[in-house]
C-alpha cells in the first residue's frame, strides 16, 4: 500500500550527506520518516512551510533552509504534502 512512498524515502536517504527524511500531510500528520528525522517534528515542519508560503506567495513552492554550522534542513511543500530533508554539510 505505502510501498511506493517507502521506496521514495529510501531513495532520498541513500543520497550522499542526507541523514534524514520526512514526509507529512497538510495537517502535520507524519506519513513517512526515516533516519534522523523525528516523527514528532512533522507538525513543526508543516507549520514552517505554511508560513513560508504566506511570506512568499509568488514562489511556488518556496524552499526553506534551516542551517547550522554542520547541518542543514531543507523544507518544501508540494500540493498538500510537505517534505523535509536533513543533510550533513559538506
Amino acid at each position, binding site marked *: *500500500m*505505502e510501498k*511506493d*512512498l517507502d*521506496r*521514495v*524515502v529510501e*531513495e*532520498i536517504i541513500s*543520497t550522499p550527506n*542526507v541523514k534524514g*527524511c520526512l*514526509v507529512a500531510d497538510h495537517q502535520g500528520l507524519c*506519513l*513517512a520518516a526515516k533516519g534522523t528525522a523525528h516523527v514528532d517534528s512533522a507538525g513543526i515542519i508543516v507549520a514552517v512551510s505554511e508560513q513560508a508560503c504566506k511570506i512568499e506567495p509568488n514562489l511556488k*513552492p518556496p*524552499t526553506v*533552509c534551516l542551517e547550522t554550522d554542520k547541518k*542543514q534542513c*531543507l*523544507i*518544501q*511543500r*508540494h*500540493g498538500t*504534502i*510537505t*517534505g523535509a*530533508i536533513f*543533510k550533513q554539510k559538506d
Partner: protein
Amino acid sequence: MGCCYSICHKDTDPQENVVNERTHLLEVTEQQQETPVPASSASTPPRKPDEQSALNRILHETATNVIDVGALGPYALEASAYSERVRVYSARVAGLAAAPAPPPRLLADLTHAERASMLSNPPLAFADKELITNAVKKAAAALSELRVKHLEDLVVPFRVP
C-alpha cells in the same frame, strides 16, 4: 417642626451665623418667609442690600474654595529642592540601570553588520534545491498512487454461540 421652629425663632437664635445642623442649606430671604404679605405693604422695607450681601458672601466663599491654577503663576522651585530632586532621580535611574539583564531569548536580534553579512551569503545551492524539489515531487507522486488494498474482512465474527 424643627424647620418651622428654626424659621420662627431665627431672630432670637444666638447662633444664627454659626453653621450647625439647623442651618438652612438654601438661604431663605425674609421676604419669602413672610409670605403671604401683600405686595403693597408699606411696612416691608426693601431687601435689596441683603440680597447683594448674600451674593457677595457666596462669591467670596466660592473664591476661597476654588484654587485658580492659572492665577498661581509659574511654578518656581528652590535651588536646594531642585538639586535634591536631581539627586533622587539620578539615584533611581542608576538603580534601574543595575537591574538584571533579561533572560536569553531563543531568537535574538543580530547586529546590523552580522545581519548584512548573513544576508549577503550565497543562497541555497542549486543541487540542494533540486534535491528537495525532486524528493517532494516523488513523494507526492507516490502518495497519489496510494490505494487501500483489501486484505481481510474488517468485521470478524467470533462465532459466539
